[in-house]
């Protein structure tokens, strides 16, 4: 008759195992969701500049045309003036480009350029590629934006 307790124990053990599995799944989920590098400031591909990219109003709103600021400094920290900037991008996982064609519209001083016409129409992983030409040379940088 003691064997019923063995079954109960086994049942409890099984339940504990299940809880453990669920816990592991929960713990690993945020890792897989963190995906691409989301830093808003980084060195350009060949290290000519340090670029940072921020929404001008601080928040990203899906489906709205927004302006962002691209700030360019030399590796030594001096603002980059008179840069020619090209913008492209898209959603790498959906294989499509941007729904708008953002442009550098204004130079705001201190290495800050307004990138207007940015719109993210869906949630997910977006990429923005910038081609930058200035006195120091040409370089490029990619920012990931995850909504």
């Amino acid at each position, binding site marked *: 008759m003691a064997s019923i307790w063995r079954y109960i124990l086994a*049942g*409890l053990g099984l*339940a504990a195992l*299940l809880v453990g599995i669920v816990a592991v799944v929960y713990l690993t989920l945020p890792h897989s969701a963190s995906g691409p590098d989301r830093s808003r400031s980084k060195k350009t591909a060949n290290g000519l500049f340090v670029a940072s990219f921020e929404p001008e109003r601080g928040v990203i709103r*899906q*489906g709205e045309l927004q302006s962002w600021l691209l700030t360019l400094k030399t590796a030594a920290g001096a603002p980059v003036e008179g840069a020619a900037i090209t913008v492209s991008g898209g959603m790498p996982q*959906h294989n499509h480009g941007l729904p*708008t*064609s953002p442009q550098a519209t204004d130079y705001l001083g201190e290495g800050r350029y307004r990138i207007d*016409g940015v719109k993210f129409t869906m949630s997910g992983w977006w990429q923005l590629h910038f081609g930058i030409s200035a006195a120091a040379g040409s370089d490029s940088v990619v920012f990931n934006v995850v909504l």
Partner: protein
Amino acid sequence: MSRLTSVACLLALAALVLLGGCGEPQFSDAEKKTIASLALNTLPSLKPDTTNQYADVPAAAALGSTLFFDAGMSRDGTVSCSTCHKIDRQFQDDLPQAVGIGHTNRRTMPLAGVARNPWFFWDGRRDSLWAQALTPLENPLEQAGNRAAFAHYIKKRFGERYERIFGRLPDLSTVPANASPLGSDAEKAVWNAMPASQQDDVNRVYANIGKAIAAFERSIEPEQTRFDRFAIDLATGARPEGNAAFSPEEILGLKLFIGKANCVTCHNGPRFTDNAFHNTGVPPVDGLPPDRGRVDAVAQVEADPFNCLGKFRDGDESACRELRFMVKDGPQIMRAYKTPSLRAAADRAPYMHAGQFATLDEVVAHYSKAPPSVEGVSEVHPLDLSDRERAALVAFLKTLSD
């Protein structure tokens, strides 16, 4: 034997407790967030349209409403906007392709929430509600009129109402009866012979006709549905009552819509549209002229004298960013069409830009198979849904109707 059953009972109990611990609702937090973002209560209030200073003037909306239903606003007095945009049919006509003075090449679009669009028509070849309204008026297959005739008609029928809203009508006494830069060869010749100032006068009256009609259309908004009641209850934690409760099939359909079937990537937000253009591999219709969608619309909206950058816009140019930053080329706009709202779609077959699919079952079967596009590249990929999953998606879409 009894020991076996008691063990089975215990295991079942443990499983139940475990499941119960995960919460009784069938949705994850991420799913709940997505569902909440689709509910009508998240629709922001309508923004002012600074390009149309009459957009929220009641007298303009009243005149616009009159014009919308007036068959006098056509070449032979038989067609109005409401011929195709029927008020009791969600402002559409249930036909695969609209029929006005002639047979058109496209499906009539419903108008609920239309004032919230950045682009108009399936291909977005107009950039404001008021510029849009001027297009069917002169389209030879739709109302087939011409702007000189419309100006005379407004003066004759609605002169006083017009002047109370827009100020004095120009002197039309020397304006020819029929003339337009887009009309027949004869009408074009007459138009080209008119002095620029007179062309301008006529264009101004014409733009105001569009602005009045747009003011009326701003009042057409989507209605709350079963889905919205369900979504609000889910968000507030209330148990959905009566018809706000979803059947297991509808819940499966909703989960597919926001999950595995990826519908929500394009049909998102409270209107179920991202307001953007996509190639989804919908096949062309035999016998209709070639239709390349967005790729051909770019030049048209740029050339439209009534576009946001043109001189008939009110307010300043800062309202024109959609036009300024639109995508002008690239493979992604070939056979790309605007994502339609799915609200109340179940009650308005047939579907797609030329009425290609007769039923929602056909629509969902299309997405499941995702055939390649005849031109350009389709953005949708095969889903290989089971019969049960396809039926569930259709069941969910119907909750956006009642």
